[in-house]
Structures are given as structure tokens and as C-alpha cells.
């Protein structure tokens, strides 16, 4: 094995994953099953709500009792029950459909990751901290119904959960119109930052809760002058991401750290980003991470976090729909996070109230540069979150 690795300067860890004909067929079917749940059954549920439930709650505009009343009224309805059960099962199947191929590839994947961690042919680094205290919430349950989530380790130098989350994620997004390309969020955020803060020239940038770097890598192309860092508390996803980066020739620095208190010095970064992160951690941790962002940013530096829209930015029905994941997708902090005003969270972390922002930005690829320019001039609005737009919040440090 060692001889073969030396022949290839940077082994391709993803190419080691070789699902069989029938496994590929199953994955493709699961992607479509998920789409059926999230499009067709979701529309059927909404139509049921509008035709039969909203009138009983006093109208669609301001139903009595807000989203919780909608949830209580919808739970017994077949439209809700079948939407929920199909969506839940499809979610589980995204990961079940990739596990056998990962089990077969695991020994070779570990060899490649180990070799690349030692040599770092693309530059960059992988710094793990086996003594890092893992927050209790992070392993209390398997988020997104992923058995083992990002943290489980079965053997030394394990990458299995990195592969499960990454390849299972591809089944999950296989039929998603705006998430088929890994890194769509980072591409969009990077482009927006370039437009909105044209004088920002980051020396260093940081992606927090980076998992395997999918929404870190595009920033390397957008900000080639910056040293790129990604942190996460879980080693398997970092090892896997580091191997992908090395193969792609991206000099990214991955380190295993808790974003509530990192080892970086004050003012070390000019740009801090995250995506799909804060709703997975308790509110107390959210506040601590934002304070840490304030400490880590240099004056003039910017943080931009892509997140779920807050409750106040959404209709009651939208809140009922989005908060489904709290109990049913093992994301216990989801509702509590969405109850917060992101601007108040930023101000509470030390940022000036006038320097905080929250807005929808367009998805770059689907929106296109021409329309993006019109969006930046305020002539047109961004599409809704997850439907061609991304909700972001953040602040500039003075």
C-alpha cells in the first residue's frame, strides 16, 4: 500500500468510495424519495393547511396562537403524518444507503488520510487535539439522524463518519435545486462579501464548525491572498476534509478546537464565516462563540454566518414548517436558536448595533452575476432562504 501511495502524490480519498450498481441505484432512489417528501408532500400539507386548518384558526395572516397552534392543529392530520414519516425515513435512508460502500473502503481511506496528514503536499495542516473536552450536547444524540454523527470513532485515525456525513449528504442534496454543488453557500457568501466590503483584503479567514470543509474550500478561490483555517470539535470529519483539501491542492489549515474558546490570538482573522452551524448548539454556546468571533476579528474584520431565518423573519406557517426539524431531525436547539434576534445576539457579543446585519443574499450560481449586481443596488430582492437565497447575519468589527 505504501508504494502505491508514493506513486500518487495526493491520493484521492473520495475515489476510494465505490458503491455497487445497486447501491448507486438505491442512493438515487432515496434522493428522489426525499424530493417527493420535501416538494410534493410538503405542498400537499400546505394546501391542506390553507384549505382546512387556517380558516379554523382564524385566517392565514394571523392565526390564533402562532406557529405552535398550527403545529397542534396539523399533527393529527394525515397530510402532516405522511409528510413527516416519508421525510423521516428518507432522511435515515440517506446514510444507510452509503454505509456499506464506506465500510468496504475504510481501510484504504484511512491509509490515504494518514499519509496526507503526514506529508501535506498541498501545504496547510491538520492539528488534532485528542485531549479536547467534547461538550456533552455534541454527543447526546445523532444530529440529522446520522448514526454516529460527526464524532464517533471506531478505529485509530478514523475517517468513517467524515465519509458518512459527506457521501450521505450528497444523497440528501441529490435532488436539491440549490445544494447539489458542494460549497454553494460559501461561493455565495464570498461573492457577497467581495461586493459589500470591497476594501476587505483578508490576511486570514476562519470557518467555524467546518466539518469536512465543504463550505470553506470555495473561500480559498475567492480570497487567494488569505490563509484559510477551519475548526471543528470532531476529528473524523477534519481528517476526511484535510484529505480532500490535499488532493484538491488547497493549502487549508484544519484544527480540532471548540469555537467557544480557540487557541488563536486576538485579532487574528479578518473574515470569519460559518454555515448551518449555530442552530446545532445551545444558546449559551452561541453567545460564547459570537463573543469569541469578536475577540478573533481584527478591527475592520467581518463575520458572516449563514443560518436559518429567525422566527421574526418568517410567517407563522413558515415557523411551524422549519421548526419540524427540532424534534424530528434530532436538532434540539433549532427552535431556541430561531427564537433569537441575530442582530441582538451580535450586539450582545460586543459588536456595535449599527455594524450588525441580517439579510437574504442570492445563491450565486442560480442567480447569476448580472442579477446579483441589481440585487446589490437594491433594485431586486433575493429569493427566499433555501429557495435560491441564503439567510445570513453578522457584523463588522470597528
Amino acid at each position, binding site marked *: 500500500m505504501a508504494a502505491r501511495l508514493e506513486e500518487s502524490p495526493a491520493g484521492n480519498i473520495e475515489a476510494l468510495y465505490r458503491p455497487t450498481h445497486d447501491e448507486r441505484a438505491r442512493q438515487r432512489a432515496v434522493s428522489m424519495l426525499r424530493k417527493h417528501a420535501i416538494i410534493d408532500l410538503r405542498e400537499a400539507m400546505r394546501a391542506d393547511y390553507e384549505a382546512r386548518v387556517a380558516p379554523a384558526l382564524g385566517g392565514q395572516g394571523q392565526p390564533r396562537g402562532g406557529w405552535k397552534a398550527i403545529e397542534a392543529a396539523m399533527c393529527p392530520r394525515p397530510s402532516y403524518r405522511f409528510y413527516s414519516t416519508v421525510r423521516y425515513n428518507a432522511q435515515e435512508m440517506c446514510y444507510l444507503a452509503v*454505509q456499506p460502500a464506506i465500510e468496504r473502503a475504510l481501510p484504504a481511506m484511512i491509509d490515504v488520510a494518514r499519509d496526507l496528514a503526514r506529508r501535506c503536499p498541498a501545504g496547510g495542516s491538520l492539528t488534532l487535539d485528542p485531549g479536547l473536552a467534547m461538550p456533552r450536547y455534541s454527543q447526546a444524540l445523532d444530529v440529522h439522524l446520522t448514526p454516529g454523527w460527526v464524532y464517533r470513532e471506531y478505529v485509530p485515525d478514523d475517517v468513517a463518519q467524515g465519509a458518512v456525513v459527506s457521501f450521505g449528504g450528497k444523497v440528501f442534496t441529490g435532488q436539491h435545486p440549490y445544494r447539489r454543488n458542494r460549497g454553494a453557500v460559501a461561493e455565495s457568501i464570498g461573492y457577497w462579501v467581495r461586493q459589500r466590503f470591497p476594501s476587505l483584503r483578508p490576511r486570514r479567514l476562519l470557518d467555524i464548525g467546518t466539518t469536512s470543509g465543504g463550505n470553506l474550500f470555495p473561500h480559498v478561490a475567492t480570497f487567494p491572498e488569505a490563509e484559510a483555517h477551519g475548526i471543528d470539535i470532531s476529528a473524523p470529519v477534519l481528517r476526511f476534509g484535510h484529505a480532500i483539501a490535499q488532493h484538491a491542492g488547497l493549502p487549508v489549515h484544519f484544527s480540532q478546537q471548540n469555537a467557544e474558546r480557540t487557541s488563536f490570538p486576538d485579532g487574528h482573522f479578518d473574515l470569519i464565516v460559518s454555515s448551518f452551524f449555530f442552530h446545532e448548539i445551545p444558546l449559551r454556546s452561541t453567545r460564547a462563540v459570537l463573543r469569541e468571533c469578536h475577540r478573533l476579528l481584527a478591527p475592520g474584520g467581518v463575520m458572516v454566518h449563514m443560518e436559518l431565518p429567525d422566527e421574526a423573519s418568517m410567517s407563522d406557517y413558515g415557523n411551524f414548517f422549519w421548526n419540524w426539524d427540532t424534534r424530528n431531525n434530532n436538532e434540539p436547539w433549532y427552535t431556541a436558536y430561531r427564537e433569537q434576534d441575530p442582530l441582538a445576539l451580535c450586539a450582545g457579543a460586543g459588536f456595535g448595533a449599527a455594524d450588525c446585519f441580517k439579510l437574504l443574499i442570492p445563491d450565486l450560481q442560480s442567480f447569476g452575476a448580472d442579477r446579483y449586481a441589481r440585487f446589490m443596488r437594491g433594485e431586486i430582492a433575493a429569493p427566499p432562504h433555501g429557495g435560491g437565497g441564503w439567510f445570513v447575519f453578522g457584523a463588522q468589527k470597528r
Partner: protein
Amino acid sequence: MNDPHDPSAVMLPRQTKGKRPQFFDDPAIDQVMTFVVELATELAVVRTRLDTVERLLDEHGSVTRAAIDAYEAGPGVEAERDAWLAGYFRRVLRMHAGEAPGPIES
């Protein structure tokens, strides 16, 4: 045998840690829905395999298991298969009218 450090012996967990929600009054219906959805997916796998066999026969006039397993569908074939899958799940998961409207045609 059973070396805890042997990556070729790793069996990834198939069960998720966390409380499973119950969507129906009788939890047996939740379980049966898993059976139904898994069975529907298995049938889609068989249909895809049959499609591969037919395409290999069209092209080569013969078929082997090795050729089936090595078959890589191109973008055109994948698009045809996706269209079939979308219609398939709409048919198999057809909702009753009355309680909830059927899927909205796009």
C-alpha cells in the same frame, strides 16, 4: 479476528441515537411506513437494474453480471431514470383526496 484496531472489521451503526418520534396514534403504523418506504425503494433498485439489463442487451445483444455491475449511466440515462423515479414515487405514495389533496403537478 475481532481486532478492535482493524478498520476492515468496522461495522457502522445502523440505528440513530435519540428518541424516535411517533407520527401515528399506533406506533405499529410508523413501523409499517418504514417497511413500505424501504420496499418501494427496493423495487426502484430492481427497476433500475432491469433498465441496465435492457440497455446492455440493446447495445451488445448479451449481458453478464459483471457488465451490469460495471455499467455507468451517462447524464442522458440518469435524466430518464430520474423522470421515471419522480413519477414512480408519485404513483406509489398517492394521497387520498378529501383529507389531503394530492401532489400538486408542476
